[in-house]
């Protein structure tokens, strides 16, 4: 069982992570690099930003690919998605163990649910940040992040697998609680980058996350079922071990 989970998670997580990393390099990293020009003071949002016309350098040239820096980003994104994949496949294994059938097509729903729990729900209180953004204490934000991910995942699982209105009410409470409690926020806003860049960064980070999680869900279900067939655990018509 463990090797079936691990092999599925390694393949699905690495592949989805590479997809995520390439999309990030194409769409997210240029916005981050642009913002770093404000963080470093090369551009100044509040004055004549070096654009020569009193604007804020909306079309500033950003550095291109940096092999070491971007290589590390690809590595860590692939690693992180491999971690996501272990959690996702473990949840699929638990569902299958409880008698629920997992199909490749349902993998899409599993992936989107993962996106909701790990990226969208935390982003509702703490949107993906540009470097240099003002933020509260890192420890508090990390605690809120883990709590939000855990509560959202549990709430979604109750909606998907629970029965009865009482459980649905508990699910709704779990989904709402992190946002009623609220994410930790800084005392003052001091971010040097223009809000235009910050909103573009958050939207693109979430868009890339949705695509990558959808790919992760499909691949995780695909490899999970393939490994089952290879191990002879299930036949083509029966998702269950006899």
């Amino acid at each position: 069982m463990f090797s079936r989970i691990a092999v599925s998670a390694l393949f699905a997580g690495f592949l989805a992570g590479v997809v995520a990393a390439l999309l990030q390099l194409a769409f997210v990293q240029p916005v981050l690099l642009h913002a770093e020009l404000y963080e470093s003071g090369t551009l100044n949002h509040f004055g004549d930003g070096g654009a020569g016309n009193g604007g804020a350098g909306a079309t500033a040239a950003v550095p291109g690919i940096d092999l070491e820096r971007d290589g590390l980003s690809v590595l860590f994104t692939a690693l992180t998605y491999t971690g996501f994949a272990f959690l996702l496949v473990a949840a699929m294994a638990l569902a299958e163990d409880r008698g629920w059938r997992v199909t490749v097509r349902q993998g899409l729903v599993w992936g989107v649910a993962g996106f909701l729990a790990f990226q969208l729900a935390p982003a509702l209180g703490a949107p993906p940040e540009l470097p240099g953004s003002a933020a509260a204490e890192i420890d508090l934000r990390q605690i809120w992040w883990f709590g939000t991910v855990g509560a959202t995942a549990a709430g979604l699982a109750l909606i998907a697998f629970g029965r009865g209105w009482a459980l649905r009410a508990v699910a709704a409470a779990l989904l709402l609680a992190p946002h009623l409690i609220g994410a930790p926020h800084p005392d003052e806003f001091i971010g040097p980058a223009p809000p235009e860049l910050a909103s573009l960064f958050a939207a693109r980070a979430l868009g890339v996350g949705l695509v990558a999680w959808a790919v992760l869900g499909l691949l995780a279900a695909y490899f999970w079922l393939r490994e089952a067939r290879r191990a002879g655990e299930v036949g083509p018509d029966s998702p269950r071990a006899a």
Partner: protein
Amino acid sequence: MTAQTQSRTGISAKLAAIALSAFIGLAIVTLAGHVQTAALHDAAHDSRHAMGFPCH
């Protein structure tokens, strides 16, 4: 959908494998996304921002 006819043997081993996998996943996500050690933070910086982890 929820037939509970399977043999109960091996269930605890299955649950142990599932728990171990979940632990590995959580450990990887914590290490790659959250641990603030300088070297790790710098190396993972851009990917942490792009995935919406609290970074600084």
